[in-house]
């Protein structure tokens, strides 16, 4: 399902950044004195790092091929994402980080903090945030305190001041990136989208590994290129992928190789990052971030009692993007997503929307079985003709 976009220079740049951890862009940023903050999960307020003049780097395990080193301190029934990611840390692939922010998004991720401080000396600043489990006002107050504490820690450790004005400016910049990313998604609503789901994912992941202002410029150029392209119509079905830490474009390529074009998503490197905006009119910018990350952005199943809102969000996307069926992605051993897919899958089917669950490991494995599942899903939706 190759497209004209693949050959363009601008897309190649995104792909290069997504397919590696330390890119030449990050090296340049560091050479000019910039600091890089690594963080887990899409609920960490990365605007704060931009406001501090730092590069927010979303943690991944890109390039990992095994978990032998990490498995000395994880169990075989831990999620393969933290295991691959921590394995990369033990291979010294994250030496470029100046600070690391871990969050209790799930217990598997939380264990990275424990293992990291136990086994690695760097970076010097490792901070753990506590994210509430519900999405109400009291939880927003709580998370506001957490963000304020993180701000204080950054100021103290790096000897800097992060002003409210700087935070407000960062919020505007990040919101503008969100607006552009949505613009890119809008282009996929047509019958013959000019960009595939795998290509979009490369564009999205790269956005978590670049200074945001540079990324905005690249994104603008890319959207211009995509607008000028002819669409591809050789797919059999339009699907939405919902799930978790999905940063592997090859997984999407495998789905699309079976004739299921991924036209939108509800994942942590997709709409969950950008479908909503931080309120720029709220006078307290720290509270605005807390309100956004705890409540306003598309909800993650780790948040209790919020499944109806997540279901509504999926249904909204299904309608807007003319989706034929939903694929629920889940990494092995994930209890959070298992229960979510079970509930939501049933709800979607009741509404007449096809749903299937596809379990995977963090790095692509067992391709043959995945292909069979997706092909059979497309056949049940669209027949065998």
């Amino acid at each position, binding site marked *: 399902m190759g497209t004209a976009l693949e050959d363009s220079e601008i897309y190649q740049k995104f792909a290069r950044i997504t397919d590696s951890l330390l890119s030449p862009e990050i090296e340049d940023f560091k050479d000019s004195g910039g600091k890089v903050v690594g963080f887990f999960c899409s609920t960490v307020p990365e605007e704060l790092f931009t406001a501090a003049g730092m590069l927010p780097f979303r943690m991944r395990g890109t390039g990992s091929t095994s978990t032998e080193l990490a498995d000395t301190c994880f169990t075989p029934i831990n999620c393969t994402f933290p295991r691959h990611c921590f394995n990369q840390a033990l291979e010294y692939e994250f030496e470029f980080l100046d600070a690391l922010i871990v969050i209790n998004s799930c217990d598997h991720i939380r264990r990275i903090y424990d293992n990291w401080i136990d086994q690695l000396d760097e970076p010097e600043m490792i901070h753990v945030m506590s994210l509430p489990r519900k999405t109400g006002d009291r939880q927003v107050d709580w998370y506001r305190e957490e963000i304020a504490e993180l701000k204080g820690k950054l100021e103290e450790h790096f000897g800097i001041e992060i002003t409210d004005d700087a935070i407000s400016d960062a919020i505007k910049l990040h919101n503008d990136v969100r607006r552009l990313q949505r613009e890119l998604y809008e282009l996929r609503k047509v019958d013959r989208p000019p960009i595939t789901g795998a290509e979009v994912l490369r564009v999205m992941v790269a956005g978590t590994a670049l200074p945001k202002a540079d990324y905005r410029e690249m994104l603008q150029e890319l959207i211009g290129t995509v607008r000028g392209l002819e669409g591809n119509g050789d797919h059999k079905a339009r699907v939405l992928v919902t799930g978790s830490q999905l940063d592997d474009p090859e997984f999407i390529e495998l789905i699309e190789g079976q004739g299921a074009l991924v036209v939108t998503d509800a994942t942590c490197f997709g709409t969950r990052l950008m479908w909503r905006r931080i309120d720029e009119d709220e006078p307290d910018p720290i509270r605005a971030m807390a309100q956004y990350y705890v409540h306003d952005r598309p909800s993650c199943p780790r948040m209790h009692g919020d499944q109806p809102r997540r279901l509504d969000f999926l249904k909204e996307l299904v309608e807007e993007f003319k989706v034929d069926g939903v694929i629920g992605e889940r990494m*092995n051993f994930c209890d959070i997503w298992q229960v979510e897919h079970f509930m939501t899958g049933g709800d979607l089917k009741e509404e007449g929307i096809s749903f299937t669950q596809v*379990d995977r*490991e963090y790095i692509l*494995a*067992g391709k*043959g*079985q995945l292909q*069979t*599942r997706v*092909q*059979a899903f497309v*056949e*049940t939706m669209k*027949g*065998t*003709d």
Partner: protein
Amino acid sequence: MLVAGIDIGSATGKAVIMTDDEIVGSAIVQSQGHPVKTADSVVDKAMAEAGLSSVGEIENVVTTGYGRLKIEFASDNLSEIACHGKGAHWLEPSLRTVIDIGGQDCKVISISEAGKVVEFAMNDRCAAGTGRFFESIARALCCGLEGISSIENQGDSPAKITHQCTVFAESEVVTLVNEGEELGNIIAGINLSVAKRVSGMARRVGLVDNVALTGGCSKNQGLAAALAKVLRTDIQMLSGDPQLAGAIGAAVFAGEKLLARAS
């Protein structure tokens, strides 16, 4: 109208040749290390049975199974799920649930009156509860696959097998052997453990009668008996060879596609 269905599975290759909805040739061969080699050999065998001399005489070919993408003389490929549903339905139109247990996968497939897949569940990567599992247990028990399959060998008090993992279950079996557990009870325990695993998938899909077993493991009568007990339903005995169900389904699809193209 001469058509063929080829099912290149993980352990065996199957081919079925049909003329006007009737099987005129079929074959099953062991996998030969490369899907094309396996396909060539199984098709040759099926053609010999059908009295054909050249692949060119076959008007349309559909492939399925793990090797489905590599067979160049096929016009289409379809998933094993669609093909087992179709093939089992062709063999017995009253079926609504097909349990396909092959060399490294097991699937529960719910089909409509027309033989179309409505819903399915499939094991993930692990080959627990599939042909590979039975092979390794048969090795540990030194009883051969026939030993596990034969209905006479099923003991009255199935030994408890707690592990689903092939490797762990094999060592569990070795422990049982060395504790002096009766062979029949171990065999019954193994078949029961696989039946339980399948029952979970059946629950996900929603079990509707009539139910049949297809794939290589359908030859395991002990398993069929254990499944009937666990699922509390009869397992239909298919009139043809249930291991061929995938290839039959592919051949039926090949015929339908040929007709659709002609009209």
